[in-house]
């Protein structure tokens, strides 16, 4: 079974530019999550999809962040325009059922310069 796949693995962009991160969950997993870890701090929840619907987007920092999951398969997270404080590692995770933990991808390291 393929794991959760994220790309790119690294991205360096200038302040003000746009970046789109992609996540392919494990096939058949309805639940998809985005988390972010800023340097040395805790991993913070961004949002949760159930299929194509946003179940909880309470962790999204502001309206510069837009997450989509068209057709309930892969998801994208767009940051537009990027700011310096957006730098960090963005993790995607997926699960089939609630309450049994989920599988994380390897993350995308975003650096905004």
């Amino acid at each position: 079974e393929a794991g959760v796949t994220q790309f790119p693995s690294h991205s360096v962009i200038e302040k003000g530019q746009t970046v789109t991160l992609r996540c392919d969950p494990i096939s058949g997993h309805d639940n998809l999550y985005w988390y972010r870890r800023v340097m040395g701090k805790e991993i913070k929840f961004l949002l949760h999809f159930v299929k194509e619907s946003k179940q909880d987007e309470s962790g999204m920092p502001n309206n510069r962040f837009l997450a989509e999951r068209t057709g309930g398969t892969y998801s994208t997270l767009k940051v537009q325009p990027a700011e310096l404080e957006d730098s960090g590692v963005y993790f995607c995770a997926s699960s089939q059922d609630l309450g049994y933990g989920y599988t994380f991808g390897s993350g995308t390291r975003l650096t905004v310069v």
Partner: protein
Amino acid sequence: QQQVKQSPQSLIVQKGGISIINCAYENTAFDYFPWYQQFPGKGPALLIAIRPDVSEKKEGRFTISFNKSAKQFSLHIMDSQPGDSATYFCAVRTDGGTDKLIFGTGTRLQVFP
């Protein structure tokens, strides 16, 4: 406001020793307490988890001790091995409806031969 406080930030243990990582939480409504292990360049992976109706759970060399009245839980790694060197995150689940997790800030464990 940090809802999960994890300590220590880093830990150095000799091979064969016991590694202990502690977490304290504030909200008594949390109902699921997982520990994640992360190797460099990889995403966090579920290591072991406990629910509040038990005080201890053991899986191989890894044990979670849970103290509901003190609102604390800890990870014990017995007979620590160099291969255990990684960053460990405790987490709590806030809402069974979304499986949203709040993570601690992480503990970098180094096990020396």
